[in-house]
Structures are given as structure tokens and as C-alpha cells.
């Protein structure tokens, strides 16, 4: 099982779209840096992300949300907010990390 990371805003680049297309069901997706903008509940990518989450687990880094003034309460349902320690734990649970940038 792979951990996929996305670090670009979906409004700027296609990294998230490609990640959702090419991540196998059962894998984990972690939004980091500008990637966290994808999880805004009212955003244009909310529906696509929620669709992808039916077969995948979605995470976002707390420090990256805080840095951008994003409240976890304003994210789509089902996103698990984790810290850097959680990132490391997640990475060790997965076979390898594939970064979409």
C-alpha cells in the first residue's frame, strides 16, 4: 500500500487530479503544503476529493492548514488532520511514498 502525497494547490496544478486517477483503491493520500487547499468544503475540488475518498483515506498536515489560516472545521468530512509525527507514522505503515508535485 502506498502513501501518496500532494503538495500543490489543485487550483494551480493537476497534481491532485492525477493522484486521484493513479492511486490504487485502499491507498492513503496526504495533503501537504499548498495541497491542503484541495480539502476546503466549499471549494471546487470537494466533490472530486470526496468521490476519491470512498476507496482511499485522506489526511492533511495541521501545520500547513494553520499556516494558511484554514480551520479543520471548514474542510470536507472525513479528512484526518495529523501532525508531523503522524506523517512519519503513516509513512512507516506504507510500502513507500509517492509524491505528486
Amino acid at each position: 500500500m502506498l502513501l501518496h502525497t500532494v503538495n500543490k494547490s489543485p487550483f494551480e496544478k493537476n497534481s491532485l487530479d492525477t493522484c486521484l486517477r493513479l492511486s490504487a483503491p485502499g491507498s492513503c493520500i496526504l495533503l501537504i503544503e499548498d495541497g491542503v487547499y484541495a480539502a476546503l468544503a466549499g471549494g471546487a475540488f470537494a466533490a472530486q476529493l470526496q468521490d476519491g475518498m470512498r476507496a482511499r483515506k485522506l489526511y492533511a498536515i495541521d501545520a500547513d492548514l494553520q499556516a494558511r489560516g484554514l480551520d479543520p472545521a471548514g474542510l470536507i468530512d472525513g479528512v484526518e488532520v495529523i501532525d508531523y509525527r503522524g506523517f512519519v507514522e503513516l509513512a512507516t505503515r506504507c510500502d513507500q511514498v509517492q509524491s505528486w508535485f
Partner: protein
Amino acid sequence: MTDEATAAPPGAVKKFMYINRRAPHGGNYAQEGLEVALIGAAFDQEVSLAFIDDGVFQLKTGQDTAAAGLKNFTAAFAALGDYEVKRIYVEAESLARRGLTADDLMPLMYEDEDDDYAEKPLIEIIGKDALADLIERQDVLLNF
């Protein structure tokens, strides 16, 4: 970092996939990706390349960079077959979205030493689900 990879003895052949997602002449990613792939293949690893998103433009036929004053490194794709690279995967969805078909891609070939050196096409166009499965089964993923 897979269990199989960490358990493998030193010198064991690993499955390397080079993921290429950028167009060829707008930056350095594409050329460097090809160079690193050739290096990996020279070390007798099991190397494949995947072309996704604008990466599919790297394999477009008829690239002539002379007037733009650029080096046409894409001619070196023809060498991949000689380096024992046997698989180049092109994602069907990326190709279709850009209005391209298999006919727009370089006719890259390799000689199959297990089949009396028959010439075989190097490029395989595959759908997103099959490619996702392949990505999942690699030992090493390198992105360009």
C-alpha cells in the same frame, strides 16, 4: 522501502519506475528523467518508464528543436531499447485528453533476447487503473 525490497539480498534486481509528467522543452525535468533512467538501466535493474499528463508530449513524433535553439534530447529515447528497457507505459487518459493517439508517438522498439531478438514495440498504452496497479507494485518510484 517495500518488505520485498528490504528483504532482498544486496545486488538483487529491483523494479524501478520513472514517472514522467512534464512536457519536454519547458524545463529540465524531462531530459534529466531520461538520463537517470538510462543510468538505472545500465545498472541492470528492471526499469520501466511511465508517461503521464504533459509527460506524454515527450514521446511526440517530429520534434525539431533547431529553430528554438534547444538540444533535442528526445532523440535519445530511441536508445532505451538498447539499454534493456522493455516497457514504456503511456497513460491512455493523458494521451486522449491531449488529442493524441498511438500514431503520434515515436515508434520505439526493442529486441527481445528471449524471443530470438524479435523487434517489439517498447510503448504500451494502458488505462489508469492498470497503471495504478503497476505503480503499486514497484520497488522504487522516481518522479520527473
